[in-house]
Each structure stands twice: as structure tokens, then as C-alpha cells.
């Protein structure tokens, strides 16, 4: 039962994750991009943030870094449709920035819920 923020530029994805999380009893808020996400987080201190990495405006990685800088204790889960920068894919990079989990799309509901439980526990 947590307050979770979902940041993704694709509304279908936002809807799907919302449905999954709500089915597990979490309270979910969404944001379209990193900046909006930051604002929401400042307004409402969420317990967890799930963010896509490849997004216009504020890149996902940037968002993660900014969140981590401002809310060091905040657990973050990164999701991605697949992208590489050089030899490293974004998810691996995200791990480098200290996200709790990196989940590739598409995912099953279980894959999300499991990771959320794990991240919330820490």
C-alpha cells in the first residue's frame, strides 16, 4: 500500500502500469515527463518512482539523477523500451545511477509487482 509515481511519455504505458499497481492496492500518480514528475514528487513525497528512460525533455537518466540528488532515499525503478548508448544499454546505465531495478518492456504484471515489493522493502 504505497504511493507510487509513474513517469512515462506513452499514455498506454502509464495506464497499464497504473492498472497493475492499482490492482495490487497501491495509490498511483502519473506524469508525462521528467520535469512534471519532479514537480509531483516535490509536491507529494511518493514512496516509489517508476520512470521510463527514453523520454523527450528531461531524459529518464537525468530524471533519475535529479531525483536521487534531491531524494536520496527514494527508491526508483527504471523501465525501457530498449536503447543503447554505445556498448551500454540504458538500463545498465540506470543501474549505475542507483536504481533499485531495471525492467525492460514489455513486462508482465508479476514482473512489475515483484520489483515494486522488493524496492519498497529497502
Amino acid at each position, binding site marked *: 500500500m504505497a504511493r507510487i509515481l509513474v513517469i512515462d511519455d506513452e499514455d498506454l504505458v502509464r495506464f497499464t502500469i497504473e492498472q497493475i499497481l492499482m490492482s495490487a492496492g497501491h495509490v498511483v500518480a502519473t506524469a508525462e515527463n521528467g520535469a512534471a514528475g519532479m514537480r509531483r514528487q516535490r509536491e507529494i513525497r511518493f514512496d516509489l518512482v517508476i520512470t521510463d528512460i527514453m523520454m523527450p525533455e528531461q531524459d529518464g537518466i537525468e530524471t533519475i539523477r535529479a531525483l536521487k540528488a534531491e531524494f536520496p532515499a527514494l527508491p526508483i525503478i527504471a523501465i525501457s523500451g530498449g536503447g543503447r548508448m554505445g556498448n551500454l544499454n540504458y538500463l545498465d546505465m540506470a543501474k549505475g545511477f542507483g536504481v533499485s531495478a531495471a525492467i525492460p518492456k*514489455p513486462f508482465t504484471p508479476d514482473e512489475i509487482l515483484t520489483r515494486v515489493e522488493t524496492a519498497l522493502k529497502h
Partner: protein
Amino acid sequence: MSAAEVKKEAAAERRAMRQLYLLLGSIVVGVLAIALTYTVQARFINAGEAELQRVHQTTRQLAGTIEAAHAAVRMAPGLDRAPSVSAPDRGAFIAASVLEFNRMTGAIDELVALLAEEDAERFGKSVDRLRRARAQLHDLRQNFRGDDFDFAIALRMHELYIGIVAQQLRRTHTSLASELTLDLGARREVMRASITLIALLVLGALTLLARHSLGSIRTSWAHTRQAHGALAESEARYRRAERGTNDGLWDWNIVTGENHLSPRWLEMLGYQPGDLPYRLETFADLVHPDDKAAVWAAVDRHLQAGEAYDLECRLRCKDGSYLWVRTRGEAERDDSGKPTRMAGSISDITEQRMARESLQGERDRLRQILDAQFGFVCVLKPDGAIEEVNRTPLALMNLTREDVIGRTFWDIGWLKPGTEKDIEAAVTAAAEGAVVRNDIVANFPGAGLRDVDAVFQPLRDADGKITNVVGFGVDITERKQAETELAKARDELEIRVEQRTHELAVERERFQISQTFANIGTWDWNIQTGALYWSERIGPLFGYEDRKIETTYENFLAAIHPDDRQMVIDAVNACVEKGETYDIEHRVVGLDGRVRWLSEKGDVIRAADGKPIRMLGVVQDITARRAAEDYLRHAQKLESLGNLAGGVAHSLNNLLVPILALSKMTTDGLPKESPARNALGKVVDASERAKDLVARVLAFSRRETPEISACDLREIAADALRLAQSSVPSAIRIKAEIGERPVPILADKPQIEAVILNLITNAVAAVNGANGGGGDGRADGRVALGLAVCAAETRFRSVPEKLRGRPCAVLSVADNGGGMSAAVKARVFDPFFTTKKVGEGTGLGLSMAHGIVEEHGGVIEVESEPGRGATFRIFLPLIDAGANAGAPKQKAS
């Protein structure tokens, strides 16, 4: 007259002549006789006359003496009066006496002298008396004291005495004179008589002779008449000749001044007979004023010295113009040599003068031409004597023509001393018919030694006989010097050329080596002549390896790939005609069939007027570069494709999120018996598969630097197969025999996967008939993939040499498509080689596959025959299975 008559006539004439001679002889004899007589007698007479004269003279003298004596006596005063004469009178008397004494002695002396010559017998006594008287006078004189009156008296007495003697002598002489006169008269008579006698005798003889020869003389007269007739005839002939001749005849009587001029003479000057008087003055007036002096001088010389009279002068014609004539003549002289007549002719020489003038003009012109010659010209006699020479050498020697004409050519001193013998030999040879051309050395004061190119040639007359030797020479000193210097310069040049050639050889070596190293060739096309030069590398670059072929524009074009040919032609023309930059890249097809890419850069060299002369170009093999470029392009395309794929994948993944998750959620929420559960389950499956595919495509399109890792070829093959199967029409079955045993290799998985995928794709295309090499698609098209392992010691004969002796993996992809010909098989791994239609394939797949396999230490081969499909085999070295087990680096896909 007949010959006999002529003979008779002649004989008669001879007789007459003889008689005439006789007559003449007689006359002569008679005359001589008379002359002789006369002479002899005359002598006597003369002697007598002379004596007579002398006597007369003596007589006169005597008379004179007597006169003197008488005078002396008369002057003396009477002898008896002597003492009464006064003193002054005495003095006068003495003085007069002295005078008389002198005169008297003188007279006596003369008389004595005269008488001494006379007959001594007759006058001897008188002479003695006179002598004695003289002596006495002399004595008196000696004793005279000056005032001796007595002397004077005595003197007078002696004088008187002398007078008396003289008188006696006179008387004697007078009678003598008479005697002589008589004698003389007699002699004269004698002479006259004798002469008369002789004359009569002669006359008588003559008469006899005359009578005798009257006939002959008459005949002679007849002859004379005939002679006259002949003379008249000849006169007439003369007249005819005079009329007929073109010359005018003149006949000047020097004595009378008459000057007969023939009608033709007058006519020549436009006059008629009778117009002018026949006088010398006529001629004199008509002579041109400027010629008068010469004419009269000539006349004088002829008349005085007998010099021939032959000169040219002008005579005035009736119309006032002047005619040039040649006047000739000769004078007749009398016995004393005095000229009495002169006769001759005048000829109109106008034409001759004109001819002479023009001839002279021509001669002058010839001389001018000769003198204007740059070299010397001379005409020699065969012995070397100079007949003619032009001005050139004369001017240099400061001589005149007259100085050298006649002298021997080589003795003039204008040759180098010591060379005279050579020149003599040359002239002699020319005189015998040779043409001798030599360099000789002349020596001119002031100019020094000069080299002369001289030629001596024979000159022949109309009959071919050699009459002269002609010499001609040109000063070639400067030329010879120039030749010497040229020879020197040439030698120097040869040395330099050698040096330069060596340098050039070295440079050429460097050039060729650099060309060889850089694989660059140069060509040089002479646009005017069409000649084409290829450097060493051009042949190989264009695919004409070792074969010697003609360097021609046609061969150049033939080597170019047919599709690029027109482009090349256009580019060459554009550069030549319009000056556009020539910088192209085109393909060439070598004789071995290999395709290469060449870069050509060149430019046209033009003349000053812009006309193209040459085109030079540099050719470089850029096959590797183009392959690299194409690789890069391909890679970039791939990259962009990759990016696209990345983007697409990303979007797909996003879209799959709701499909997968929500389907799962819905399925989980449905009761187990619900029919929808099954359907949704299928949706979930499809989503999973879609996720998988996206992931694979993404992974495939992301390949960059190879990352070698230990992997199992089976996995790679399986992945490739899966990928291939998704894009292949289901009609074609890909059979795969991968085997159970692991096939560990060291490889970059994506690369090997790409290779296998490429082979499968090609096989499918072949079976579909898209390769163009074989027939149409087969209904039973089969593609088979096989994977096997060969042990090191295998005798599998198709294991390539490279991998013999080691364990290796063999992956084969076989199809039963159209197969390929040997030619295609040979080039199938070439970059850009494709049998597919344009746009359907870049031809890079197999070449890339080849490259990748080679990099992995393996070998890729093809086995095929037309109509029997193809089998591609990849051999890769196996690694020890356990060696790199552990944590193979696996990338999240």
C-alpha cells in the same frame, strides 16, 4: 678568147714586152752613153772652166794690185818735191805709207798664193820677183824708225816696181785666158759633136727597133686598149659595187682639196647627189664637234706616220641628227712620200654600236654581278693564269684587276703560305676534268687567315674541250669557328646528357617504384596524333596484367565497365572540349573478370590558342577505398536502420506493454473455464513472441565492434535460423541439422549470426529464382542447413588447407536452386559482385561474410554447378570446450 689565142696573145705580149724592154734598154744605154760622154767631157770642160775662172780671178787680183800700186804712187807727192814737204804733211804721208805698206804686203801675199798654184814654168820668174820684192818691203819695214821719210819714198818705189811686175803678169794672164777660152770652146764643140753622134746612133738603132717592133707595139696598144676596156669594166664594177655596198665611199684629193663622195655616202646622211659640194670642207663640217679633234688627229697620224686610219665618229645628217659611222681610208703618196690622195669608206655602225653598248652593258652587268658576289670568283687558264677575277679578293688585297690578270693564281700571295702546292694540285685536277671542292686557307692583309670553302671546276667549250678552270670560294671562317664551338658544345652537352640520363634513370626508378607502391598509373594522350603512353602500372590497374597489349584509346575504353563507359567518354570530352575538371571514378573489368574501381584525375594541356594538345591523367585503384566507403555507407545505412530499428523497437515495446500486461492481467482475472481465457492466452503468447522478435531484431541491428567470446555455434545457427524463418515465405522449408554435440568456437556472435543469416537468405533467393543465374523458382525448393564437427585427423577432403590438422566446425547451407557457373563461382565473394538485379542486393553480403569468416580464422567456400544448386560451407576452428567455460560474457539482448 680561146686558150690558144690566149697563149698567142700572151706570147705576143711577151714579145712585145721583150721588145719594149729592148727598146727601153736601148734608150737607157743610149742615155747612159750620152751621159757618160757628157760627164767625161763635162769634166774636162769644167776643169778648163775652173782654170779659166782662176785665171780670171788672178787677173782681177793683179788688176787690184796694180791699182793699189798706182794709187800709192799717185798719192806720193812728186819725188822731187820731197824735201819741201812740210812736217805735218810728212807725217800724214808717212802714216799713209805705212797703211799702204800693210795693204801692199797683203796684196802681194795673196797674189803670191794665187800664182803659186799656176804653171811654174810660165809664171815662176814673176813669182820670184814678187817674193823678192816682198822680202825687201819687209826689210824696209824692219828698219823703219817712224819718221823716216826715206822709208816712205823707198816704199813707194817698191810699190811702183811691184806694179810693173803685176802689169806684166796681167798681160800674161790675159793671153792665157784667151788660150783657155779657145781651148774650152774647142772642147765644147767636141762634146756637142760626140753627143750628137751618139744620139744619132741611138736614134738610128731605135728607128730600126721601132720599125721592127711596130707590130708588137700596135698589139700592145691593142692590149692597152683592152686593158682600158677592162679598166672601164672594172670601173663599172666598182660603180656597181659602190652602189651595191652599204658603205659610203670617199676619195679626197689632198692636193686640190676635192673630196669625191659616193652617192651612198650622201644617202647615208640623208642627202642627194648634188646637195653638197665635193670638197673636204663638206666632210669637215659634218663631223660632230666633239669628234673633230679625234678625226683630224687620226688623219694627221696617218698622213705623217702612216698609222692606220680607222676610227668611229658622228656625222650630221640632213635632218640634224647624228649618225655613228666607222671611217677608214688610206693615202696614196708620191715619189717623195708626200701624200697626194686619200680614199676610204664610211659604214653605218649604229647597230653595231647599239649591240656593242648592250654587249658592254651586259658585260658591265655581269661584272657587277660578279663583283657583288659575296665570295671570290675567278676564271683561270688551265695552267693557273688568271683570266678574270671579281672585285672581292682584289679589294681585300688592295689590288686592281690589272695587277693580277695573267699572273698565276697561287702566286698572288693571298693564300696561306705553304698551301700553294695544294691549290696548284686542285687547279690541275680541275683542268683535267675533276670538280675539286676543298677548304682552303686564305691570307689577307688586315683580315689575317680566313677559312674558305673553295671549289674548282672545269669550263668546257661547245666541243667539250676544257678551256678554263673556274674557281669559286666563300668565307666560312665564322662558320668553321661556329662548327668548332658547336663540336665543343656538343661534347659538353653529351657529357651533361649522360649525367642527366643517369639522373633521369634514377628519377624514373623512383617514379616507377613510387607508382608501384602507391598502385598509381599515369597516362599521357597526345590528342593531335592519338599516341598514348601508359606508365607501367596502368596495364595492371586496368586488368591487363602481364599481357602486352596495345596502348590505345580503344583498349582503354574496352577495359571500362560497360555501364560506366559512356560516363567516362563524356567526362573526357567535357575536359578536352570545355575544359571541365576531369575527376571521375569508374569501374573496370579486368581480363580475368574482376571488377575494380579506379579513380582518374587529369587535365588537358593546351596551345596558346587554346587548342588541346595533350591530356595527362593519373589512375589509382580505389577498389579498397570504395569497398571501405561502401562498407561505411552500408554500415551507416545499417546504423540508421539500426537507429530506425531502435526507434521502432522502442515504440513497439511501448505498445506491447499494454498488450502483454493487460492481456495477462485480464487472463488471470478470468475464471478458469472461461472461453475468453484461451483466446487471451493466445494474445499473451503472441505478445511474448513479438517481444522476442523485437529484441532479436534490435540485437541484430546493433552490431558494432566485434566482441569475441566463447560461444556455441549451435546457438548462433539456431538464432539465425529463427530470424530467417520469420522473413522467409513459408512455402520454403529450411531444414536444419544442427546436431547434439556442442560446437564451441571463439566468435563475435552477432557477426557469425549475420553470416549464417546471409547464407540462408541467399539460398532462399536462389531457390526462388531471384538470382538470375538459374531457372525460375522451384516448387520443391529446399534449403538445408547442416552443422558438423571435424576432428583434427579427419580425412574429410574438403577441409581446406588452412584448417587441416585442427578440429573445426563445418556449417553448410545448401540449396537446390539454379546453381552457378564457374565464372560466377570464381567471383561470388568479390565485393560488389552480384547476380541479383539492380536494387535487389548490394553484392556485399557474401564479401562481408567472407571477411568475417576470414577474421575468425576460418574459411568460406562454395560448391556449385549450373542447374545443380549450390552449397556454401563455413569452416571455423573449434576451441577447447572447457577452456573458456565459466562466465562467457553474455550481453543482455
